[in-house]
């Protein structure tokens, strides 16, 4: 596959959870795509559905409460196009894709590594599961991977336990494990949130280097706009289960269209600018049992119009792939920004 080829098409993905209070629409008709070798950033605040979107792509929605109720996740792999949502989450086909072609790393590397096995055991398990290698070869490959993520003395480190690693080193080990089978897609769910800024910079630089070397596409999920600015080629902004804006990183940062994206960018403290912070009033609505039919951001939106409270906005596209789910951009009706 060449750089720029389409790898993933997510179309109208909806993932719901059954809770005691009713149906929770964690992901509500979200669409995006991913090309070979690029980095897509998914940004949003806690509870906006960004992690569940990623888990849906991996077919790892928490069972039995959650399920993918609509949409498609089309993966264009080496063996043709498959719809991931059509597979059972434990099926043989799914397991072949998961870890082998699409890998994932998580926020807290301590909880995703097993404390009673050595780092080497865990790396080798992943390698032997997906590749036809013997123990000795798998061990060699594991050591290579540790060296690749710049862990010194990889041979000795294979026999260490996760608790003997620092937070940054654990995340490196997780990356080594995720990349050990040369996946096409790496999904990183807040990979640096638990780390200090200096270690965060190390890990992000490492991910960029590995991407240049190995050519995988990355889906980077984070709440940190600074991380997105540094890593992503394109951005999907999520709010309350919706994808509210989708564009290139430059477009989102310099000419954002959705009032939420604009407000989010203004609320980050900027060094050297000591003016009062612009905050977004209120907080994210409770998504349990919400009656649809209005814009979930309207109560916090400074530019909300009558229609925003009466009708859900559709997604508008400007022909250059910059999409926005906001009535302000409606050409036909009231949209005051559509020009």
């Amino acid at each position, binding site marked *: 596959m060449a750089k720029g080829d389409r790898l993933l098409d997510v179309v109208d993905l909806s993932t719901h959870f059954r809770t005691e209070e009713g149906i929770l629409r964690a992901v509500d008709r979200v669409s995006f795509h991913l090309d070979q070798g690029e980095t897509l950033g998914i940004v949003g*605040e*806690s509870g906006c559905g960004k992690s569940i979107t990623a888990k849906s792509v991996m077919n790892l929605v928490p069972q039995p409460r959650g399920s993918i109720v609509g949409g498609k996740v089309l993966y264009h792999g080496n063996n043709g196009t498959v719809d991931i949502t059509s597979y059972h989450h434990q099926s043989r086909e799914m397991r072949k894709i998961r870890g082998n072609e699409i890998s994932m790393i998580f926020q807290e590397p301590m909880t995703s590594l097993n404390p009673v096995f050595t780092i080497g055991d865990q790396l080798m398990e992943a390698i032997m599961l997906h590749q036809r290698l013997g123990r000795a070869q798998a061990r060699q490959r594991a050591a290579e991977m540790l060296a690749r993520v710049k862990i010194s003395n990889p041979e000795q480190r294979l026999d260490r336990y996760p608790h003997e690693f*620092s937070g*940054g*080193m654990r995340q490196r080990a997780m990356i080594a494990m995720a990349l050990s089978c040369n996946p096409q897609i790496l999904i990183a769910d807040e990979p640096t949130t638990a780390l*200090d*800024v*200096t*270690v*965060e*910079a*190390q890990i*992000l*630089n490492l991910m*960029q280097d590995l991407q240049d070397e190995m050519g995988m596409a990355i889906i980077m999920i984070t*709440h*940190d*706009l*600074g*991380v*997105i*600015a*540094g890593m992503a080629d394109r951005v999907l902004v999520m709010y309350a289960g919706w994808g509210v804006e989708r564009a290139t*990183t*430059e477009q989102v*940062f*310099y000419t954002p269209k959705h009032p939420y994206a604009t*407000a*989010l*960018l203004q*609320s*980050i*403290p*900027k*060094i*050297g*600018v*000591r003016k*009062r*912070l*612009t*905050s*977004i*009033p209120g*907080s*994210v609505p409770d998504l349990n049992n919400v009656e649809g039919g209005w814009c979930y951001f309207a109560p916090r939106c400074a530019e909300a119009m009558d229609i925003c409270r009466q009708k859900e906005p559709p997604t508008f596209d400007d022909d250059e792939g910059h999409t926005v789910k906001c009535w302000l951009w409606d050409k036909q009706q009231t949209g005051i920004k559509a020009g």
Partner: protein
Amino acid sequence: MSAKTILEVRNLKKYFPIQKGVFRRVVGHVKAVDGLDFVIREGECVGLVGESGCGKTTAGRSIIRLLDPTEGEVLFRPGEQEVDMAKLGKDGLKRIRQEMQFIFQDPFASLNPRMTVGRIVSEPLKIQGIGTQKERMSRAGALLEKVGLSASQMGRFPHEFSGGQRQRIGIARSLSLNPRFVICDEPVSALDVSVQAQVLNVLKDLQQDFSLTYLFVAHDLSVVEHISDRIFVMYLGKIVEIADSQELYESPRHPYTEALLKAIPIADPKLGRRREALEGSVPDPSNPPDGCNFHTRCRYATDLCRSEEPVLQGQQGNPEHQASCHYQNELQLAGYMARGAG
């Protein structure tokens, strides 16, 4: 600045013993805070920053005596008289906490889930025996309004509030006794970006309205810059640099500060592409390196740094800007502005 000193900390140390074996024999110490000296002046906001494990939270907790310091003095001057917080007994501490309060990091763990918000906010008044029940509740209501909640929410329980709202409740509680000095321990770290801005604005307004002095502990340099007048940078239990906030960002004097500034993520795709990363990680605080603590990760380190420990001292011609680096007068370090932002 001519304002009077409200807090003076001298040689503050907090060591945690490492115990081993059946008899819990002490085999060493984690030197979480290892000799802090600084003053805080009335009405200012001082930011205390550093990576996790550098001892910033332990420092805050040792000052207000949530932890008992191993050594050192904490001289607090709320009014005319001066008290050494480190030596106070139980009654003295209870009295002095009317003047010094604490805001906790985790808004989910620091509020009692079985108490109504009104009780939570008025609890300090009750402990101090101030006012009648009715007076206390009306004060709680007024405080909730002050932090942007409504007095009508007093009968609700913490779980009915979002993270940002809970942090406001914690702030209201810390202000119920009308303190002069508040230690904020990472008050916005657990909050979403849009909510962080709300809480930071509330803290800033309250500082004016109640003429408060803050010690603001944080790991996030951009948040600290926004709220602080001066900044203390900590590394491995020690303060490595003290400077006026703007000056610290423009012309740092310690290589560690420089490295921290280089690592700040910038929310601008043209500037934030690749950050220069500090190699390695923080050494084990139970076995700190010889000489300068930072020499294992410092790109400018020499033999002098590996053998001799620098002292925190003022710069030539600028005694207010202190750094503990042998070469602080020679090195030309790059500030944050050199990255093209700001």
